[in-house]
């Protein structure tokens, strides 16, 4: 057993933390929430130069062969910084789906560009009546003389408004199939859904969108396996992002409790506040343990559906509790737009409902327990 980071991982963490402190003040996070694109292109390219898009990709596709655990550490820093933009969609969803299901030709064609930050990807799974069960997909792809015609509407597709490719999971006969859809394809349109924070989720309409056979990702009708794997990775990755946010909440809350004076002393000297902080600390430490264990198992290629679900279910609830207490201790000031605390309160709820809420992961665990 070893709960520590390697020297390289420590370095990655430090580089990322310093980078975001310098490059992404919270004022800019808040500005970006109102921006049409939702993120800074300049920052995007700087991150690409640092090699972060290709961190976990093989060297032959322009990556640096990092582990999923390395990516998790990077995502922690992104969560801490409240980074807006399509990095998660591109790297965690897009690159994972291509690595998992793509042909050699597709990998060679797409991944080096992805690694250079030149292509943005997203994954379209949810629909108006489906969150996690592909067998109920209403979006269909019909085989027309070898090519496919996709029809229907996907929901909650992250960053589709800026994506170059939408990887769409559509029903094809017996099961779902993944299609690599050029976002500029005729018949594809998107609307950005109302946001709570800086996130961009879209409704994507496929109106008789033609996709050539060459753009099928993986095997026909076998999409569920790929989706499950990618969404398991995404759930673990989301835990990492939330863990980073939770660490920041802990730090800023304790710092505030030390400096805010009421009734003649720092509020952190009151036991009521101390016990709130202690409860946050326990939630945080457990978040770290379950998240790192899950990320480690993904890294090692072990079967880990149970452990990832366990992590997500815990982090969902624990981060929520932590942000509520963070607001409680900061008092009314954190209710103001100028303050940063609310960014994390929003991040916690958005993270909680992304890639499986608690109930969904509990159901996975129940099955793993033989229930």
């Amino acid at each position, binding site marked *: 057993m070893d709960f*520590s980071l390697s020297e390289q991982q420590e370095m990655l963490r430090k580089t990322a933390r310093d980078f975001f402190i310098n490059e992404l003040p919270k004022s800019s996070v808040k500005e970006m929430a109102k921006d049409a694109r939702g993120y800074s292109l300049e920052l995007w390219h700087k991150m690409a130069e640092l090699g972060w898009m290709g961190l976990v990709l093989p060297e032959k596709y322009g990556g640096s062969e990092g582990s999923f655990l390395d990516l998790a550490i990077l995502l922690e820093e992104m969560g801490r910084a409240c980074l807006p933009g399509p990095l998660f969609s591109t790297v965690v969803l897009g690159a994972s789906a291509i690595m998992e299901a793509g042909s050699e030709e597709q990998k060679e064609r797409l991944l080096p560009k992805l690694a250079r930050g030149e292509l943005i990807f997203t994954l379209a799974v949810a629909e108006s009546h489906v969150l996690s069960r592909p067998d109920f997909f209403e979006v269909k792809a019909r085989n027309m003389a070898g090519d496919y015609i996709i029809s229907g509407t996907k929901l909650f597709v992250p960053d589709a408004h800026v994506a170059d490719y939408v990887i769409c999971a559509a029903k094809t006969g017996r099961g779902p199939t993944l299609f690599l859809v050029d976002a500029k394809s005729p018949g594809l349109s998107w609307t950005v859904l109302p946001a709570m924070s800086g996130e961009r989720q879209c409704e994507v309409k496929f109106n008789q969108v033609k996709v050539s056979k060459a753009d099928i990702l993986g095997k026909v009708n076998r999409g569920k396996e790929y989706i499950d794997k990618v969404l398991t990775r995404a759930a673990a990755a989301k835990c990492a992002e939330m863990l980073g946010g939770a660490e920041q909440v802990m730090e800023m809350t*304790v710092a505030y409790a030390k400096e805010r004076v009421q009734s003649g002393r720092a509020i*952190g000297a009151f036991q009521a506040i101390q016990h709130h902080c202690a409860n946050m600390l326990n939630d945080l430490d457990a978040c770290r343990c379950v998240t790192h264990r899950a990320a*480690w198992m993904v890294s090692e290629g072990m079967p880990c559906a149970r452990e990832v679900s366990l992590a997500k279910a815990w982090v969902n609830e624990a981060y929520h509790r932590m942000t509520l207490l963070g607001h409680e201790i900061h008092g009314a000031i954190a209710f103001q737009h100028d303050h940063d605390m609310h960014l994390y309160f929003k991040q916690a709820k958005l993270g909680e409902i992304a890639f499986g809420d608690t109930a969904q992961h509990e159901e996975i665990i129940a099955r793993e327990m033989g229930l």
Partner: protein
Amino acid sequence: MDFGFTPEQEKWRQEIKAFLKDNPPEKFPTQTGEDSWGHGAFSYEFVRLLGKKGWISLTWPKKYGGQERPWMDLLILFEELALARVPWAAAAICWSMSNTILELGSEELKQEFLPGIGRGETILWLAMSEPDAGSDLLAMRTTAIEQNDCYLVNGQKVWSALAHLSDYGFLFARTETDPNTPRWASISLFLLDKSLPGVTVQPMISMFGDVFHSEVFMDNVRIRKKYLLGEKNQGVIHLTRTLEFDRFWARFPKPAFCHRVNQDLVQYAKETQCDGRLLAEDPMVRHKLVENAIEIESCRLVFWNVGWKIDRGLPLTYEASAAKVLADDMGQRFFNRGMQIMGPYAYLGEADKWAPLRANLRRWYLWTAGDSLAGGTSEIARNTMAITGLGLPRK
């Protein structure tokens, strides 16, 4: 990062499992009922068998009969013993106290005590709390006044866990009575022989009708000077460390034990019909069982994280207190859910295959009223987390 165990550690785990298979814990005679985490009851015979295997002294130096094995091996042993629900109630406490003897004891004391503890023949209890010194431990009034070759001890201890089955008390007493001396510089630590004249152990009947704690009265007890453990008047630092150790070691087995009980509850739910369906098909029952699993596993990983720090020799500040709060909170919710799943059937008297689970669950549930108080209240532990761990101001 690595959340796995080495092949040697896995082999060690298998060795323990094989031993437990050859020596089924439930076959051993017991002298008292379950302790709070129901690691089985307490059995002299079983603890002596652990001693015979050399597993009590596993981590000690070879010269005291130990094997100098790493802490990780002891943690694996704890986890396996808890999974098997062995009758070892007081043994976990002895492990932590024997470490203090190793650290502070004179050569003479080590030679006198360690072999017996290692064989599982000498059992220690923690004599700390007093009627008016609970969370404010430093308010203790038991005095130990230096007199010739002895300390003359007068006073009373309370909540002395399993003192009625033990041989020696790990006694904290006031050795400096001058009110101008700060409290932290006036307490010392002794090994108290229960058979000394003037010692009276008065078992206390608990809320479920049997004995776990005792009151211990000391009336002009003469403890020979050599039984002073560590330096005179420097006991407070040992008191803090003993408590911290107790918080960690006494609770490390808890997630493993709860995991085992949750497995039983899962099986019960899969086999038990109520109102026309299996409990395992009731969404609320499933939800409770899964919540149990999530909390148990999170708690377990936090304990391994702390154990790993101990193994690495990394300094601990708030971790043992934090783990105590986490485990005891978890346990309270866990056993409550267990009772909810069984509902009124928890009170069936029938002697069917679920009878032991029913009886123990009732008992463990009642214990949770005391879990958050044992080893220092969870409030005191949260204070430690806030002040020591997070650096929040005392005043």
